[in-house]
């Protein structure tokens, strides 16, 4: 650890200036936008923009969908990744092929994959073929609320690998001897999972959960590719709203919606952080 404060400047100054210019200043500048009226005088209007935006039905729809989608996506991604990594960890050293192929989708560009995805979920496509083969009836996957499922599956397919890799790294860092001792004591498998595995990976699990959530908020990319700027009501996200308002040059509404969203994101993060701290203390 270096202590001479002067020496750090050449390392961090260029980067910090960039962050200041492209992230921090815009962030605070945006707050100013959300409390002015955008007219020629640009007068201060207090929370009027917030009142307007929160009463806007499209904003409400976008917020509802974004929250619902992330509430479906992030917990299912988290659980799926946890179960797979525990199973994969028991499979060691086999299972390397799966580990390698599960990470690949994370690097694949969405729009290239989407062609195949839309083929699979076509009315006459393989997914409906499978459903009818199992005795069901065909589903209109690419219309209305059903469109959510392909989007959610695409999200899981793309993000699963990264979460599994982080979980696996944490699982592999747990010393083998702990389990041997537990087996000697006669602990069952679920008991081992909850009393040994879970407490030791809380920090990594927290990070995975945050990443799941952040990526779930970014699901807009796939929605935009499938549905364009005005997708079906079931998929109209907050980002759609912001982008469309931006297209109409309504900067006040964009920034107001953005800050409303940011406050929610930060509050959720704060809550999760608080819970993680408590969980860790409780488990120690």
């Amino acid at each position, binding site marked *: *650890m270096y202590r001479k404060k002067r020496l750090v400047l050449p390392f961090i100054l260029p*980067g910090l200036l960039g962050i200041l210019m492209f992230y921090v200043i815009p962030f605070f500048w945006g707050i100013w936008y959300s409390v002015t009226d955008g007219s020629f005088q640009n007068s201060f209007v207090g929370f009027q923009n917030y009142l307007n935006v929160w009463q806007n039905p499209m904003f409400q729809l976008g917020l509802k969908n974004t929250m619902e989608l992330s509430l479906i996506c992030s917990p299912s991604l988290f659980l799926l990744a946890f179960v797979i990594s525990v199973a994969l960890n028991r499979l060691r050293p086999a299972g390397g*092929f*799966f580990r390698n192929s599960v990470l*690949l989708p994370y690097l694949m560009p969405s729009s290239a994959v989407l*062609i195949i995805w839309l083929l699979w979920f076509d*009315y006459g496509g393989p997914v409906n073929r499978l459903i009818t083969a199992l005795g069901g009836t065909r589903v209109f996957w690419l219309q209305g609320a059903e469109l959510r499922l392909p989007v959610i599956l695409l999200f899981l397919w793309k993000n699963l690998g990264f979460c599994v890799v982080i979980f696996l790294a944490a699982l592999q860092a747990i010393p083998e001897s702990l389990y041997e001792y537990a087996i000697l004591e006669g602990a069952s498998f679920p008991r081992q999972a909850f009393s040994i595995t879970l407490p030791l990976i809380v920090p990594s699990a927290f990070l995975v959960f945050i990443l799941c959530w952040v990526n779930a908020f970014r699901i807009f990319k796939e929605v935009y590719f499938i549905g364009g700027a005005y997708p079906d009501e079931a998929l109209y996200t907050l980002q759609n709203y912001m982008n469309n308002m931006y297209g109409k040059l309504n900067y006040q509404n964009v920034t107001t919606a953005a800050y409303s969203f940011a406050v929610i*994101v930060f509050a959720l993060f704060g809550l999760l952080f608080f819970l993680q701290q408590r969980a860790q203390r409780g488990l120690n």
Partner: protein
Amino acid sequence: MRRLKGVRLKILQGIFLLAALVMLLPMIQTFLYSFASMAEMKAFMKTRGSYDESLWMDAHLIPNMVSLGQYHQILITDNTVLLLFFNSAMYAALILLGQAFFIPPLAFGLSRFRFPGRNGMFFGIILLMLLPFQVTMVPNVLTLRGLGLIETIWAVVLPMWFAPFYIFLIRQFMVGLPNELIEAAEMDGAGTWSTFLRVILPVCRPILGAAAALSFAESWNLVEQPLTYLSTRQDLQPLSTMFNQLARENTGFEFAGAALYILPALFVYLFFQEDILSGIQLTELK
């Protein structure tokens, strides 16, 4: 962890093998279809979107006749895809170059120096990492307009140089490095810069490789930034924003286009695979 043995091991292995194949299927199918003739793919893609109960899409995986027609079309006859591909490559290259220059020193400063405000800065970077792009979109447009960069490639490239996620990733790795490394370098009379360049960076190879691969994936898949910052410049758009449109037009060469689009990401993945795995394993992700 208890190891599985016998039949149960075999069953679990079988399940995982099957799951891996399903995960890889979209890429495999893209590559297989890219060797079908354009006429075949046009006919095939026309059967999409039919709601006739009695009709099914053809469920073949292997093209009826192997042909390089699609590749001939996108590489030689028509250069639309190729130009977009080069745009994407340019963005990825410029973004990675800038990141290589700015991010590792910043991560080093935030991890191996003690100075007031350090933890606050790092906490700020984590908060920025959580923010969706749209939150700072409008002021960013105004800033970039003020700098005269809007509607140029730099509007997309410059903000990415300071992407908070990669600062976080590399900083976490550097925090975990043993102090002896730096002490030994100091004993040999190395200054901070030569320690950073000759001792720290080589040790950080896995995480730098991982960050480069992840950042490449992000740059290769840019959507929001080109759409907002380059809204009037059709000619500067990367493949990521335009490809969807091309695929929708039923051109017959969409699968060769997709294969070409996927290929660099695939190479990057194969090249950095070990770095991603070991980089994440060695990082203090807490």
